[in-house]
């Protein structure tokens, strides 16, 4: 009996871990500036005594917005132009108040006043060079037809890109295409004179560039604002509105550069900003890297164990059932096998329209993945028990249930455990992808690291995940030691 309790304790472990309290859940768009702004909101709320759950790495606009609408998050930073074009599908430019009204009437959403900067497309050149030529606005370009212009391929193609811009401003230059990542280097080395940028890019600060003023207001404005449901607690709204007009373009450029080039953490940059503006007083208790890794590892374990426990609870009885009704086994094993062929990232993505974002869809997807190895090994393990022993078990008076309990299951145990072990290792690995749909865990480091091209951050998630997989392997060695007599171990 002791060995079953041991097994049970292992299965129930995730339930025994402490549960989280109800909190404000802050989302973030999957890029540098998105993370910084979300971290500013999070720390601002924490400074006012709220508990905050960070739901970062939510991918693009659609996922964030769906998450907000489905109440998986409570607030996230968004841009006015994006809301007008991608969410409200507006054909024309909307003023700030038009946008407010439409969001309120059509979607029951509200936005805060602008944080104070506009992250739009812009044309940029080296500061000294522009000053020497007395170029301040886009209109000033008309009198400098010989500038060498290199633009990102996207900007060359967009409706609000070069073609219409050059028409609107009657610009004479003939641009060439360049990979956006290389454009700054080319400017630095004077290979080109002008390129397109996002007006808050950290590179503007780093390379000493200026953004030319859009004096004819050609570009859509992308004011950064907080987006939330109108039902959000009014005291929370009051706090986030404190950010109005606190960040200008230069300040945002600086913050972006600090993360990308000075490798400061989001948390540090956000905290420094809020202190410099006097928006929070008490020094934030810096969560150490170790504490962060520990907490993410815990989340990771929780997701993994829940998915695995569910899979065991379903696959084990189902496997026994398939053994009893052998004619069913082919159909069921084939169907479950089909699930396994769906790429994990696709399966996770499929979960979003069905179940939204967060831990539930992630656990569901991982559960589906863990089913097959357990199910197949249970069934084959039971089928493989020596027929003579099955006959003898019946012959000495064991009923079908007793045969299962005393003879068939113990003899199939090595195979069943091997199945669970495979499932566990697969689940730990796949769970790193769960960060893409906001389930948290070690994958958050990896996803953020990928977004920022930061190897150290990627390793911060990958190494603990690998260690976890090894620990689980060892744990199963111990379980096998307890459950299977030595001479029957493989």
């Amino acid at each position, binding site marked *: 009996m002791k060995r079953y309790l041991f097994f049970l304790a292992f299965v129930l472990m995730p339930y025994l871990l402490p549960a989280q309290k109800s909190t404000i859940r802050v989302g973030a768009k999957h890029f540098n500036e998105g993370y910084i702004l979300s971290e500013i909101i999070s720390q601002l709320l924490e400074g006012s005594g709220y508990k905050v759950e960070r739901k970062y790495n939510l991918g693009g606009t659609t996922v964030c917005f769906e998450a907000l609408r489905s109440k998986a998050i409570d607030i996230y930073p968004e841009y006015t132009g994006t809301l007008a074009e991608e969410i409200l599908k507006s054909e024309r430019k909307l003023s700030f108040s038009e946008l407010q009204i439409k969001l309120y009437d059509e979607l029951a959403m509200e936005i805060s006043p602008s944080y104070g900067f506009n992250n739009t497309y812009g044309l940029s050149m080296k500061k000294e060079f522009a000053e020497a030529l007395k170029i301040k606005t886009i209109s000033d370009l008309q009198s400098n037809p010989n500038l060498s212009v290199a633009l990102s391929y996207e900007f060359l193609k967009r409706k609000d890109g070069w073609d219409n811009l050059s028409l609107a401003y009657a610009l004479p230059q003939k641009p060439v295409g360049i990979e956006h990542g290389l454009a700054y280097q080319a400017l630095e080395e004077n290979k080109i004179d002008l390129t397109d940028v996002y007006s808050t890019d950290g590179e503007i600060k780093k390379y000493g560039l200026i953004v030319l003023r859009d004096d004819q207001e050609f570009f859509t404005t992308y004011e950064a604002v907080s987006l939330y449901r109108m039902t959000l607690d009014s005291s929370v709204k009051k706090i986030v509105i404190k950010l109005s007009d606190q960040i200008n373009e230069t300040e945002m450029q600086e913050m972006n550069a600090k993360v990308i080039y000075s490798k400061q953490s989001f948390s540090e940059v956000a905290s420094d900003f809020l202190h410099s503006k006097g928006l929070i007083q008490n020094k934030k208790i810096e969560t150490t890297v170790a504490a962060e890794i520990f907490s993410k590892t815990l989340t990771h374990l929780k997701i993994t164990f829940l998915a695995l426990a569910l899979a065991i609870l379903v696959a084990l009885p189902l496997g026994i059932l398939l053994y009893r009704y052998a004619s069913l086994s082919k159909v069921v094993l084939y169907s479950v096998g089909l699930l396994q062929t769906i790429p994990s990232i696709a399966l996770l993505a499929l979960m979003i329209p069905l179940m939204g974002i967060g831990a539930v869809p992630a656990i569901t997807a991982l559960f589906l993945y863990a089913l097959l190895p357990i199910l197949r090994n249970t069934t084959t393990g039971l089928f493989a028990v020596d027929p*003579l*022993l099955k*006959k*003898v*078990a*019946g*012959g*000495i*008076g*064991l*009923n079908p249930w*007793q045969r299962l309990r*005393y*003879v068939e299951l*113990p*003899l199939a*145990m090595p195979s069943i455990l091997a199945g669970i072990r495979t499932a566990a290792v697969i689940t730990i690995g796949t769970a790193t992808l769960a960060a893409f749909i906001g389930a948290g865990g070690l994958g958050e480091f990896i996803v953020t690291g990928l977004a920022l091209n930061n190897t150290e951050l990627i390793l911060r998630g990958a190494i603990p995940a690998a260690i976890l997989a090894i620990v689980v392997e060892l744990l199963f060695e111990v379980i096998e030691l307890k459950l*299977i*007599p030595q*001479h*029957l171990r493989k």
Partner: protein
Amino acid sequence: MSLILSFENIYHAFENQKIFDGLNLSIHEKTITAILGKSGSGKSTLLQMMNGLVHPDSGSVTIFGEAIDYKKIEHLRLKIGYAVQGVGLFPHLTVAKNILLPGTISKKSDELLQKRLSELLDMVNLPSTIKTKYPYELSGGEQQRVGICRAILLRPLLLLLDEAFSALDEETKDEIHSQFLAIQKAEPRTIILVTHNKQEAEKLADCIFQIENRKLIKLR
């Protein structure tokens, strides 16, 4: 002597091959009966009809004075000991657990079972240190004796042995045969053994039958 088991007019086919064609058999209390037959003649099938592992196509099986009830077959099987060629010891259980399994499931008290276990090991000349060993650690002869201990743990009224001694070398076989007869003297019961070995049958059995032309012929 009262009747323990009787087969009347048994017909049975397996994969369209007729095995028994109007077979009759009566077994009396506390006798040893041997059933001889070539391989494929249906000896094992006949034995498995006695504990309900095989159902005859037609004909009646009466056991302990009642028609066999397949719905309560596990209950009946606890009163019938069963040992087979290759012994059928469970590799994941120790000797003690193997022998005591029928007792464990019929919820006999542990004290009683331990006492019976010692008694049985004594009876077949096995040391008590063998209890904690696993089947793979035993010789063929030891395994055979453990198998018989398991079969008679609950003092079954009827003991069925399917080629139970055939895998042993001659010397071990002789030893086990004499122990077998000693057990029968100590705890007389009805025993039916199936064998292909005529000498074994003559040495051990009171009655001997041979399966021929899908019927039984009495030789002794």
